[in-house]
């Protein structure tokens, strides 16, 4: 019996297990290692704080998300030995593998910022990237009666890079519905030089910030949270006061990888951008949020990587060479509030452009443009996630990006790439 061992049963790991299980004979064991018994539909965490999503709809028991023919080792990884092809685990015998796929994701690290976990944590300082954080924030928002609501991205890279901005747009809508928008200053503090960093996006989407009256604090690198004074302080000594702080703390890869030779300084795994092979190793691959790739840390990226890596794995098993097929393709809905959303489609080389998706010139979903259809499609995606993406059933979206029907000159006209 040969083994494909997958570390992590999140979006990437679970979809990968199902995809490769369908393609391989029973001579192969497909196994995942994950200590957690729950699977969270993470896009739902954006809506939970506003009461627009429920825990019951976005959390499932892990065993219900893993199909027949997949072994689940419910334990923690302790060490990875890529020379001997063995993974040591906290509970049980070491696991040997023929191919290893690292899909251990990323986690938020509020402990890395001075003062963040002091008195204010989950009282006036919240995250929404964890289930506990999003639930606590729901209560925090419900008792918020106005003042300064600050959303702060501490540092890139983060999971779902547009989620913080979506949160601001949804907060504007939520506060309007509650009748306290005029009593609230909404502030977005970012380490980058703008809420939108690409010329085309700034040009076409800048109106969103203006129309919604959102203040933007740029190049703000948070050094500490002062929970007594209720301010965040940057390394260059600027202060942003808050009544309610929604922070997106720094992200790292799994702790184990941070401390091992496999991870970089932040625990992300140096990965070949096109084959997804882990650099400097053999028979080891990395997918999803765990990589150091410049592609977005997003579920769609994981999905496309799973499609392409499963084909590549079959090639290697057949004694052929890996093909450099992954192009950094990402496809994300961006909630803009008031029942509308945008859809963006991009890869390593091409920034999000206007056009239609998935059928060029037809749609039905418009790209880089607000529409109610996009909002409904985003909400409908939860069903697709549980029933299509995770069990790796076919979804009619190409894993590589298509330029067909996109307005290629738009970026150049805006002074971009």
């Amino acid at each position: 019996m040969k083994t494909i061992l997958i570390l992590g049963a999140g979006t990437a790991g679970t979809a990968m297990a199902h995809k490769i299980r369908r393609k391989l004979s029973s001579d192969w064991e497909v196994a995942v290692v994950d200590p957690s018994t729950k699977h969270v539909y993470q896009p739902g965490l954006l809506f939970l704080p506003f009461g627009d999503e429920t825990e019951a709809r976005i959390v499932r028991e892990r065993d219900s998300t893993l199909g027949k023919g997949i072994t689940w080792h419910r334990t923690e990884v302790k060490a990875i030995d890529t020379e001997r092809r063995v993974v040591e685990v906290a509970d049980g015998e070491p696991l040997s593998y023929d191919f290893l796929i690292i899909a251990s994701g990323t986690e938020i690290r509020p402990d890395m910022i001075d003062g963040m976990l002091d008195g204010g944590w989950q009282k006036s300082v919240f995250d929404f990237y964890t289930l506990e954080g999003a639930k606590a924030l729901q209560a925090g928002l419900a008792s918020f009666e106005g003042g300064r609501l600050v959303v702060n991205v501490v540092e890139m890279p983060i999971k779902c890079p547009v989620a913080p901005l979506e949160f601001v747009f949804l907060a504007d809508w939520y506060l309007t519905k509650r009748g306290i928008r005029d009593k609230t200053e909404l502030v977005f503090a970012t380490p980058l030089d703008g809420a939108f960093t690409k010329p085309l996006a700034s040009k076409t989407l800048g109106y969103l910030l203006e129309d919604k009256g959102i203040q933007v604090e740029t190049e703000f690198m948070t050094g500490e949270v002062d929970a007594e004074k209720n301010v965040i302080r940057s390394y260059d000594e600027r202060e942003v006061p808050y009544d309610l702080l929604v922070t997106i703390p720094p992200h790292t890869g799994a702790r184990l990888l941070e401390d091992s030779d496999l991870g970089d300084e932040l625990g992300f795994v140096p990965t070949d951008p096109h084959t997804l092979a882990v650099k400097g190793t053999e028979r080891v691959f990395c997918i999803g949020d765990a990589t150091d790739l410049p592609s977005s840390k997003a579920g769609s990226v994981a999905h496309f990587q799973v499609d392409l890596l499963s084909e590549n794995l079959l090639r290697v098993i057949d004694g052929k060479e890996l093909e450099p097929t992954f192009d950094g393709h990402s496809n994300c809905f961006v909630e803009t509030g008031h029942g509308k959303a945008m859809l963006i489609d991009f890869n390593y080389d091409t920034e999000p452009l206007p056009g239609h998706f998935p059928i060029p010139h037809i749609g039905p979903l418009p790209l880089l443009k607000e529409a109610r259809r996009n909002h409904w499609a985003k909400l409908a995606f939860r069903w697709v996630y549980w029933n299509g993406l995770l069990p790796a059933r076919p979804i009619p979206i190409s894993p590589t990006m298509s330029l067909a029907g996109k307005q290629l000159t738009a970026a150049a006209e805006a002074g971009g790439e």
Partner: protein
Amino acid sequence: MTLAVQTDAEGYLANKDDWSEELAKELAQELGIELGDDHWKVLNTARAIESESGSSPGLRKISKRSETPIKAIYKLFPDGPAKLIAKIAGIPKPKSCL
């Protein structure tokens, strides 16, 4: 500037291959920075990470690898180190996906 190179509207190098140490010194001077050893340690680290991973690194990663505290990076490159480092090191502007 005596060395002729193309930059984009925001002052980032248009073509990575145009970069040289001489050019970095000139770019730094224009931004009011005289480059010393500590600056170079940071700049070379940022260039190395960008070349390995394909994206301009955040300050925390630069800080860890170059063993230069973030506070010290702010002293070396005041007024927005992330942008200044990218400009002088000839690597792309730190960006998000939009």
